[in-house]
């Protein structure tokens, strides 16, 4: 997650052409007028929502159109007012305005919903309820179990990393048919987790007709079941998820291995280091930064785990396999409890941000010390 140093050249930034005062004025006025119109419309809509005025729009659609018009006006205005610098701003403007509209507003809105007792199926509508969602959450065993499961699922990333590293080493060995093996190993990553839920979770792991169950029966296991005991269920979920995601880490680690200079390895051989020693003393230190990137990226995706749990176990047995995402999903699907669900999701978001920040800081410091 380290930022690549931006390859900026100071000679470039000096080249700011002079813009005529007339153009500057037109640009500024354009931006100002459209901003006032947009803010005015938002204000009317808020007042209408609060019931203070009665001439609001039927829906928020016009606001969306206004936002688009404002964005275009802002772009044109910037070019007019700032010339060359405006042209440069145009590169980041679309992505920035887009993300602002679709992330920032919902996030602020979400924080508000988290403090309401909003149930879509009740006619009362949303009422401000203060901290009651958080209080309910702190006493909800399902929430704590889901959070505990997330810790377990995240810890499993280390096991997946070891497997992925092993596979990357295999693919990096001097083998024939490498192209075939690479494609075969990558394939699971391409498949939709929902389809995998059926392919593996519901059919291969089926306890009556599934091939794995009949194989275990032949080995003498009585009534094999993969989703009844809480721990076996968790491990089955992880196995499926790992099946999809191990190729992802494997590809990253393989690229890292291929970047290890051959001469380094050769010189180690000449010095008489055995394969095992050469690996730990020479290859592994070089691979550390890639490994950290792979693990952190994988963790970020692991924290979003939902599809497989929703489709295979629906969190069962008794919430034993729940992730936060699948828990909130059910809270909405079964009880339409938007207020509580959003509160859980927002708390989870804060937990993730803190966790990832600490992780990035610690690993960054550790890597600097090691390398």
């Amino acid at each position: 997650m380290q930022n690549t140093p931006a390859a900026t050249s100071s000679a470039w930034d000096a080249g700011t052409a002079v813009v005529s005062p007339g153009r500057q004025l037109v640009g500024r006025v354009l931006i100002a007028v459209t901003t006032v119109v947009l803010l005015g419309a938002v204000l009317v809509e808020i007042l209408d929502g609060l019931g203070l005025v009665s001439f609001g729009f039927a829906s928020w659609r016009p606001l969306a159109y206004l936002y688009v018009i404002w964005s275009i006006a802002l772009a044109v205005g910037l070019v007019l007012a700032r010339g060359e610098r405006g042209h440069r701003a145009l590169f980041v403007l679309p992505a920035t305005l887009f993300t602002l509209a679709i992330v920032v507003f919902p996030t602020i809105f979400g924080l508000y919903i988290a403090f309401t007792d909003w149930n879509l199926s009740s006619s009362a509508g949303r009422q401000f309820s203060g901290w009651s969602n958080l209080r309910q959450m702190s006493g909800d065993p399902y929430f704590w179990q889901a959070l505990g499961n997330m810790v377990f699922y995240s810890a499993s990333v280390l096991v997946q990393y070891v497997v992925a590293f092993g596979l990357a080493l295999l693919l990096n060995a001097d083998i024939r048919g490498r192209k075939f093996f690479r494609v075969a190993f990558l394939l699971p990553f391409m498949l939709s987790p929902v389809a995998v839920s059926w392919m593996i979770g519901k059919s291969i792991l089926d306890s009556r007709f599934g091939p794995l169950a009949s194989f275990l029966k032949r080995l003498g296991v009585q009534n094999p079941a993969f989703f009844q005991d809480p721990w076996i269920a968790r491990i089955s979920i992880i196995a499926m998820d790992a099946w999809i995601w191990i190729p992802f880490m494997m590809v990253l680690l393989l690229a890292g291995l291929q970047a290890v200079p051959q001469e380094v390895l050769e010189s180690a051989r000449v010095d008489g280091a055995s394969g095992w020693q050469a690996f730990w003393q020479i290859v592994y230190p070089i691979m550390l930064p890639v490994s950290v990137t792979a693990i952190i990226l994988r963790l970020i995706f692991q924290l979003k785990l939902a599809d497989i749990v929703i489709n295979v176990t629906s969190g069962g047995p008794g919430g034993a396999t729940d992730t936060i995402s699948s828990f909130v999903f059910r809270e909405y699907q079964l009880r339409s409890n938007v207020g509580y669900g959003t509160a859980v999701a927002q708390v989870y978001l804060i937990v993730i941000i803190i966790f990832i920040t600490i992780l990035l800081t610690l690993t960054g410091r550790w890597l600097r010390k090691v390398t």
Partner: protein
Amino acid sequence: MTAATATPSPAATGRPPGNGKRVVGKVLVYAALLVWTFIALFPIFWTITTSFKSAVDITQGHIIPWLQFEPSWKGWRSLGLSPDTIGQSSSTRDEFLKRFTNSVVLAIGSALIATVIGSLAAYGLTRFSYKFGPWRNRDISFWFLSQLILPPVALAMPLLVLYKELQLLDTRVGMLLVYTLMVLPIVIWIMRDQFALVPVELEQAAMVDGSTVWGAFFRIVLPIAGPGLVSAFILAVVLCWNEYFFAALLTSTLAKTLPVMVASQTGSQGINWWSMAALSTAAIAPLAIIGIVLERYIVKGLTAGAVK
């Protein structure tokens, strides 16, 4: 493959003992490779063959086609996609095709929008220094990339309410926006790395010749960064095609995607294995083909930015 590796071993017997160890190592490597190939491919093989099985073959656990069971079109007939039903009208097939089209439109559309605005942003961030208030390039980049951390669940509920007000629930436009947002940080992550590899001197030379910033970008930089662009696009398509969480929450009938259709079938009681297998096969086939044909680009996309 094992047979191929075993052949040199008789010849190796006459050589020094060090070679014997090497042969054993080779055999172990290939054995491990084959075991994982089996793990990676068996579920796919299982799904495809199950779509050709009849009820008896499933309950008796037959695995190998032609040897253990005679393939039939059973699963595909229930989807209306077998040779004998392809000419007739079938409501399941219509439903399937509608979902399939939605998935294609959403995946390609979002990937396209994300690649365009994402690579523009990535280019700007690698070449120019910005200052939006207290924010510099580093902060803007970090802000974009930090969207990757955002779990869908934190966004889904507010978006649900927001979309209801905007009348965007269950529309392709609404889903297009969400998916674009979802893959945008990944595109920026990949393209920032790709643009950093293009030497600045090329653009400077073009600018000296009278080209504008945008002219230099389109005529000089984009062709060089083309393969990276393709990688980002394909990876975005893969992620959008497989997305389930947002689709399950934000669509109901009109904009429903293929994963939601597959999921709704798994939920129903007493599912027919053959039709589920056929549906799953159809859902994974496009991406499996992309994976086989365009593996190079996917690997490039995954490793860009992560491996220096």
